[in-house]
């Protein structure tokens, strides 16, 4: 907590309907964000029970400098992932961090299961569990509108909600935050659903006196200037992340049609330029971020005969264009936006959704599964079929879709086709087939995300060497524990060097030396490793699908033995770290 020597945790237990507030001085060692969330997850999780057992916790956490410095905008969510059965960690922007900061909570911990579908309304000095029975079954947008109408604090609140996929416990269901942002990966939506929790509103309006305004003003204004007037951040605002579509395609690192290829001839229709020219209608920011990277694209849909049209707006990004575009052979931007909208309404993680459907398409082609199971004839490029299939996934329409909703690893182990089910350690692959960095980085990363350690960046900037790659991945993984404990948006990772991090911490009454920061980063990383260990995860058991080694990557053909060597070397480092105590 800013200017205080404790971390304030709001604990809501849905089973007993009791609310507690804890002031935890010991949690200061974990800074905030992923540090505090990991420590609380470790304390409250029940490794002996399944991921969706009512007892399992959800932790949301921010940092002491959230929102009051530019681009420190994220909130960490930690839980046990129903997709991988181990460490679940996800990040969302929007207004959530601002509202937690002003409500006066560093962390919100939710346990138990509500008797009936419910939503939680939190504000300073108040947390209520409310009836959401009539909202059950609504899509994520619809329930957001009702809660906006029912609850006060317009403009100073954040609304988290799930769609049908979360209610139906799809292992990669997302949680929508303030319409355009998400806790996307690893299935937090299903954890909400398993708790009968349809939505969570957090509102905050507390004012916090600034003890030394001169100091704060000068640190803030230097950071603001760096963020807004230098090149570091402009690419995220201009075309946004979709600028990468052409870059990755030209380099041969863009997964196409279930990674049967890593580039395609017809990319112009899906380029960042095309999206900007044809669809971009607005840019929006998370609260406290002067960059504004959220690109809103609009498409027109004829919903009835007789020239009946509606304009539909969705936020688009590189990862969505990959997963719901090239990976499924969708060749035009209108089609991608329409699929994004479907995924939003249903409350699915866009990346996992695209990747599981890519596998199902190829499995159907190969005769491993039948059209009786897929209901529609899935085929690369067939937009209408994918729109229907996404629905079947969210509603677990039949046994096959119920299996597919558990992730591509589960489905490919059951039906066959493991070697072209594109997951890494149980999490569906990100949009980077750039080389050993991306592949092994996601495998060794604590949450199996491309953002754990940015292996794709190593591939694109450094020559490959096992030891150099392991050094890079390990250093990034540890440093990102620090960035994520302060909930700095990773787009600003180059802005927030150690010097600036120390200045910021000094302004919020938590001065730390560089060595103390080193120790905190390692402490947090070790906590995450311990959680994984307790949940039975072993890096040595990760078996990568063969397709990764068949389709040439941006940096050439990859070898299974080499990838295994990187993973083994990383595992050894982690073992040494854990044994060092």
């Amino acid at each position, binding site marked *: 907590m800013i200017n205080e020597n404790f971390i304030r945790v709001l604990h809501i237990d849905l089973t007993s309907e009791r609310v507690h507030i804890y002031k935890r001085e010991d949690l200061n060692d974990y800074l905030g964000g992923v540090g505090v969330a990991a420590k609380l997850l470790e304390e409250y999780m029940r490794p002996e029970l399944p991921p969706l057992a009512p007892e399992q916790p959800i932790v949301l956490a921010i940092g002491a400098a959230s929102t*009051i410095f530019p681009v420190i905008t994220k909130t960490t969510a930690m839980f046990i992932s129903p997709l991988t059965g181990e460490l679940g960690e996800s990040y969302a922007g929007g207004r959530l961090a601002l509202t937690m900061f002003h409500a006066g909570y560093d962390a919100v911990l939710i346990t138990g299961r509500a008797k009936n579908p419910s939503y939680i309304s939190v504000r300073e000095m108040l947390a209520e569990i409310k009836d959401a029975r009539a909202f059950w079954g609504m899509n994520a947008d619809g329930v957001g509108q009702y809660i*906006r109408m029912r609850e006060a604090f317009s403009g100073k609140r954040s609304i988290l909600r799930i769609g049908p996929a979360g209610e139906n416990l799809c292992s990669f269901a997302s949680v929508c935050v303030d319409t355009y942002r998400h806790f996307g990966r690893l299935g937090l939506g299903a954890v909400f659903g398993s708790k009968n929790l349809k939505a969570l509103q957090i509102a905050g309006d507390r004012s916090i006196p600034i003890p030394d305004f001169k100091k704060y003003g000068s640190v803030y204004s230097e950071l603001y200037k760096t963020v807004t007037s230098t090149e570091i951040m402009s690419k995220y605002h201009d075309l946004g992340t979709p600028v990468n579509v052409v870059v990755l395609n030209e380099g041969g690192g863009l997964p196409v049609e279930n990674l049967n290829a890593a580039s395609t001839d017809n990319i112009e229709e899906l380029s960042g330029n095309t999206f900007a020219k044809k669809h971009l209608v607005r840019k929006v920011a998370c609260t406290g971020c002067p960059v504004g990277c959220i690109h809103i694209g609009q498409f027109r849909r004829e919903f009835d005969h007789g020239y009946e049209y509606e304009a539909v707006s969705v936020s688009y990004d590189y990862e969505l264009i990959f997963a719901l575009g090239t990976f499924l052979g969708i060749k035009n931007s209108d089609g991608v936006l329409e699929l994004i909208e479907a995924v939003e309404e249903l409350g699915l993680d866009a990346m996992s959704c695209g990747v599981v459907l890519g596998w199902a398409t190829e499995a159907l082609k190969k005769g491993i599964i039948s059209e009786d199971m897929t209901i529609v004839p899935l085929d690369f490029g067939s937009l209408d079929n994918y729109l229907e299939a996404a629905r079947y996934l969210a509603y677990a329409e039949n046994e096959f879709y119920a299996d597919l909703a558990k992730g591509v690893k589960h489905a490919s182990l059951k039906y066959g086709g493991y070697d072209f089910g594109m997951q890494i350690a149980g999490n569906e692959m990100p949009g980077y087939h750039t080389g050993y960095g991306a592949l092994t980085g996601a495998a060794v990363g604590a949450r199996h995300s491309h953002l754990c350690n940015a292996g794709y960046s190593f591939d694109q900037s450094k020559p490959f060497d096992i030891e150099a790659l392991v050094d890079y991945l390990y250093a990034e993984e540890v440093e990102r524990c620090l960035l994520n404990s302060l909930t700095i948006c990773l787009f600003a990772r180059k802005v927030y060097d150690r010097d600036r991090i120390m200045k910021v911490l000094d302004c919020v009454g938590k001065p730390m030396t560089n060595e103390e920061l080193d120790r905190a980063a390692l402490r947090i990383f070790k906590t995450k490793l311990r959680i994984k260990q307790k949940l039975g995860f072993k890096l040595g058991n990760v078996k990568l699908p063969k397709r990764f080694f068949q389709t040439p990557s941006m940096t050439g053909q990859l070898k299974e033995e080499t990838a295994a060597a990187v993973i083994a070397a990383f595992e050894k480092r982690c073992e040494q770290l854990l044994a060092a105590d």
Partner: protein
Amino acid sequence: MPKAMRASGMKKCIGCFTCMLMCSAYNQQNHSISKSAIKVATRGGMSSGFQATVCLACKGSRACAEACPSGALVSRRGGGVILKKDLCIGCRKCQTACIANAVNFDEETHLPIICRHCGVCTRYCPHSCLVMEDSDD
């Protein structure tokens, strides 16, 4: 030439709320949304676009100053008013008199929050939605 702050480019607003955070920080030495003299909000949900509620820098007779029974609001060159804190009795009549809903009330200090047209928000507006304009009295 005196100047006044105008929220003339709100179509470009990305909703970062930096203006509000900086207004509260500079003018009230608080990390706050509610102590800001400028209010940015959606018209109803994130998909609806942003609007700003802020002092319109009225010239000639100012309704807020007219309504003030204690003479705490005096005309500002360039438009709007200046709050004389010592004279304010916290009656909130300025708040109801302002037809732009631009006067907020600080429940902690029992004073109205009056835009000074100081321009801090314009300096921290990344898209020039908020600008200082010449304003002849």
